[in-house]
């Protein structure tokens, strides 16, 4: 019970720190681009129902059907709306940080190797490769208004690419059996060999320059997020893994005498 409490506390601290840092960086980099892109998204109107027969205008309005993607909140117009949106984004970032920190610290614990802040940085780099870089290879970070294939297919592919890359890296780092390593590398490569789901036509409303800038901003802020997350997890988990590491050494000593 004590181990769970300490593990969860470490993940909470690491998640809050990395989520806070990501929030600051995102507000300066990715979020302005998202807001800019939403202007283009709003400009693309749903098929106008005005073509409908005169007199049925009211009915048509209440029955508007456009395949245009719905962005729930739209571009904030008042200060209150803007603050609420920023607040919700910060909460989401903190939750994302805690979620990833729980997964990363569980992986550190299961690996059972000594960790500290510097080794944690390497773990963080691995996390970045697994959930940011590998999925981005097939599905680049996208802005609102960009053309995309079916959402569920993209989510599934994202999960497969991230899990495959994670398993592949873990096997390369820790596995001894060559068959296991080969299977893990195949699992990492498979989503990319199958290919990410893409729309038939890649036309979107967002200018390509904006989209390109967003990709670098998203990957850059994710890299910082993972560096802080990994280093903090490594630093806070070091005590937990260290105990398991020290125990055999203590046991050997009496026997040696």
């Amino acid at each position, binding site marked *: 019970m004590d*181990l*769970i409490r300490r*593990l*969860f506390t470490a*993940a909470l601290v690491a998640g809050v720190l990395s989520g806070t840092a*990501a929030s600051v960086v*995102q507000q300066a980099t*990715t*979020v302005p681009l*998202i807001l800019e892109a939403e202007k283009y998204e709003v400009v693309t109107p749903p098929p106008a129902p005005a073509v409908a027969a005169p007199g049925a205008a009211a009915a048509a309005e209440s029955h508007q059907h456009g395949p245009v*993607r*719905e*962005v*729930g*909140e739209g571009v904030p117009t008042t200060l209150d709306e803007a603050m609420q*949106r920023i607040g*919700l*984004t910060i*909460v*989401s*970032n903190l*939750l*994302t940080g*805690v*979620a*990833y*920190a*729980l*997964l990363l610290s*569980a*992986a550190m*614990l*299961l690996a*059972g190797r000594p960790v500290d802040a510097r080794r944690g940085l390497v773990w963080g780099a691995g996390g970045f490769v697994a959930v*940011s870089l590998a*999925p*981005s290879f097939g*599905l*680049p*970070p*996208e*802005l*609102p208004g960009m053309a*995309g294939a079916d*959402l569920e297919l*993209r*989510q599934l592919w*994202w999960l497969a690419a991230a899990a495959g890359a994670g398993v592949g890296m873990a096997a390369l780092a820790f596995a001894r059996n060559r068959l296991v390593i080969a299977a893990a590398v195949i699992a990492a490569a498979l989503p990319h060999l199958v290919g990410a789901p893409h729309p038939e036509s890649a036309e979107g409303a967002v200018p390509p320059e904006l989209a390109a800038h967003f990709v670098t901003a*998203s*990957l850059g*802020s*994710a890299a910082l997020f993972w560096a802080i997350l990994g280093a903090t997890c490594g630093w806070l988990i070091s005590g937990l893994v260290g*105990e*398991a590491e020290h*125990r*055999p050494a*203590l*046991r050997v000593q*009496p*026997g040696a005498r």
Partner: protein
Amino acid sequence: MTTRSIHTAAGSATRSAAQTAVAAFAAILLGSFLLYGVGFAQPQQIHDAAHDARHSFAFPCH
């Protein structure tokens, strides 16, 4: 004395392995649940709240 200390050490080692597995499993469970909520769940309110974070972290959003 020696026998007792070895016995204790072995006992704590097995308990530690089980504890480690349980703690890691609990962390993975809660982590996955949170990640699903913040990155993947599609109910409109959750999607709207997490919208900017999802785009920034490159989760497929909409």
